[in-house]
């Protein structure tokens, strides 16, 4: 199980929950997390595909292939107050 933290607009789109708990298997990546989120909240999934929502793993912006395992801190980050973040660095 992993916990995905939600903020701002992402939280609003998920019925104001501040986190989601997902059942994630072994050898999974951010891509798999996105698929699970999309099933429950298609609108969030869409915004992730449009790069309007970024995914972070352990407080760093991640990309589709970033590995995710039990205990990692995953979060969905809508556009920051200061403007859209520049994507994975």
């Amino acid at each position, binding site marked *: 199980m992993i916990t995905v*933290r939600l*903020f*701002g*607009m992402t939280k*609003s789109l998920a019925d104001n929950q501040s986190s989601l708990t997902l059942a994630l298997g072994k050898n999974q990546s951010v891509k798999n997390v996105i698929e699970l989120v999309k099933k429950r909240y298609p609108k969030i999934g869409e915004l992730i595909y449009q790069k309007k929502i970024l995914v*972070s793993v352990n*407080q760093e912006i991640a990309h589709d292939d970033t590995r995710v395992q039990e205990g990692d*801190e995953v*979060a969905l*980050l*809508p*556009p*920051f*107050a*200061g*403007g*859209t*973040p*520049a994507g994975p660095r």
Partner: protein
Amino acid sequence: MSTAEQNELLVRVQREDFSVDAEINRVRSRSRRIGGISIFLGTARDHSKGRDVDGITFEHYEGMAQKKLREIRERALKDFDILELLIVHRYGEITIGENIVLIIAGAEHRADAFRACKWAIDELKQITPIWKLEHTPSGEVWVEEHP
């Protein structure tokens, strides 16, 4: 105070308002070589993109926000000819006219202080996980600024 404790005071995300004079003194106390201090203070405007705004709520990602701000301070100290850089960002409800964010760059010479301060606020806006909910007469909206 240990260096780690001092560094923690130089990068903060907090609910309370701050005193610019007190924060300047924090920076100034780090070096008697400081001759030029460039400061950016962001405050809550009463309108945004043509909408009236009654108030703002800031939400941040605790932990990651601080981490990004520490990275900005460390990169500024490395990349610019400055002696100290301080960053404070508020979260929670903020009334129109109130302080939101403060950057203070202290250098021997003013041009370096200006460059570092400008870079730090631009970078903060880009990479810090902080979100802004504007309260307007027609409802609440999560917004991003296009600078």
